């Protein structure tokens, strides 16, 4: 299996003078493989280490005014909450966003790689922006070449290109789907419930943002592995813009304010004799 290393080629071969780092011969850049006796077993263990990290809720949908992208901000390791302030919406470039679900390191690296190596290079070489279709296809191909090696990536690529708004779901198994609405992560069933029942194509930006925020909030309420802050981004013809980042704990009491309950037994002041 030939690994797709187009994403890894650095600028080094262009500067022939600085060859000290390359040992005299230009070796093809590649990830170092671990030196173990049982490579498959080691990879299986690595997969198990990363697997619990798909505890998250992310969603994105296309509507009249563009693409709405939202995510929670909790990172969990089994039962322990390791962070409540993780950035799960990655800014690939000023008009494309990627969402993070699965292994944090995997998502961060490959999105950054996509933005810098793939999209920027395409823009410079072809004098025009890369389409969402193109970017997601290139990412899917890269991930497919690493299939079975333990990468854990469940991402949505959302952007606005010449054909209008675009949304693709790409995962580390090599799957790539085009669609109008997606939600990824352990909290996605709960988010789908709210998203699907409240969705209309012709919503205003505020309505769509509120729908996305509500869907994330409901997922954080029911799912133990989602929580923290509900971030909402909008991708329009001029690029993406962060609309809000609300703490989910406060959102609960905003949607369901505490009503004073009837007191069953109350102690009354007894006047001293």
């Amino acid at each position, binding site marked *: 299996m030939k690994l797709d290393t187009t994403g890894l080629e650095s600028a080094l071969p262009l500067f022939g003078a600085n060859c000290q780092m390359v040992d005299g011969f230009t070796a093809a850049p590649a990830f170092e493989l671990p030196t173990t006796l049982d490579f498959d077993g080691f990879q299986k263990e690595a997969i198990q280490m990363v697997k619990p990290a798909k*505890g998250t809720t992310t969603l994105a949908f296309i509507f009249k005014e563009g693409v709405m992208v939202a995510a929670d901000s*909790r990172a*969990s390791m*089994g*039962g*322990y*909450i390791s962070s*409540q302030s993780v950035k799960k919406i990655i800014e690939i470039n000023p008009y494309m966003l990627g969402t993070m679900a699965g292994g944090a390191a995997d998502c961060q690296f490959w999105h950054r790689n996509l933005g810098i190596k793939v999209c920027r290079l395409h823009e410079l070489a072809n004098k025009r922006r890369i389409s969402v279709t193109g970017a997601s296809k290139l990412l899917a191909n890269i991930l497919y070449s690493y299939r079975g090696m333990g990468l854990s990536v469940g991402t949505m690529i959302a952007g606005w290109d010449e054909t209008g708004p675009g949304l693709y779901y790409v995962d580390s198994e090599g799957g790539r789907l085009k669609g109008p609405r997606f939600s990824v992560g*352990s909290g996605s069933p709960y988010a789908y419930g709210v998203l699907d029942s409240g969705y209309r194509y012709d919503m205003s930006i505020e309505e769509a943002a509120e729908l996305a925020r509500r869907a994330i909030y409901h997922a*954080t*309420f*029911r*799912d*133990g*592995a*989602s*929580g*923290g802050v509900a971030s909402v981004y909008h991708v329009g013809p001029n690029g993406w813009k962060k609309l809000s980042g609300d703490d*989910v*704990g406060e959102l*609960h*009491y905003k949607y369901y304010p*505490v009503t004073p309950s009837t007191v069953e037994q109350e*102690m009354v002041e007894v006047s001293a004799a």
Partner: protein
Amino acid sequence: MSIFEYNGSALVAMVGKNCFAIASDRRLGVQLQTIATDFQRIHKIHDRLFIGLSGLATDAQTLYQRLMFRHKLYQLREERDMKPETFASLVSALLYEKRFGPYFCQPVIAGLSDDDKPFICTTDSIGAKELAKDFVVAGTAGDSLYGACEAMFKPDMEPEELFETLSQALLASVDRDCLSGWGGHIYIVTPTEVKECTLKGRMD
């Protein structure tokens, strides 16, 4: 996730000056999914004795029903309430009876014994008693609770200060645990009154 983490729970009891407080979270879940946010984990055995049961919810309910049954029989025979020390021994014996097929619970017992001296203890799932002078913890958030209580505990606290300290310790700890939280329940028991409060916490 282990069987103890199937439903998720957080329990803590703390000793003050002639009083004690026992607090729990309110979540009942099935692994990561939250089913209920008003689950009762602390039960009153009598006015000066409370037991909280963490771990598998079905075992916690069954164990509580068994303990109530035994205590009622004791009340009928002895015509008085059980002392906390005696009750702790009863819990320990009942758990060890199932040594080779245990209840997946970790109880926290808190009561006022003779001379209104507060008594707290916890046992593991097969009945090993652990008496403590300051605080005891149980549940999926147990490790976080140990840290929070150790940092916030002071000896001989009055009931109001004890309530504040215990609520802060509980809420801080469950905010670091996926499987417990969604509010809190706290009982502050002094020789003259029992105060029951519901805590407003993060619902995520």
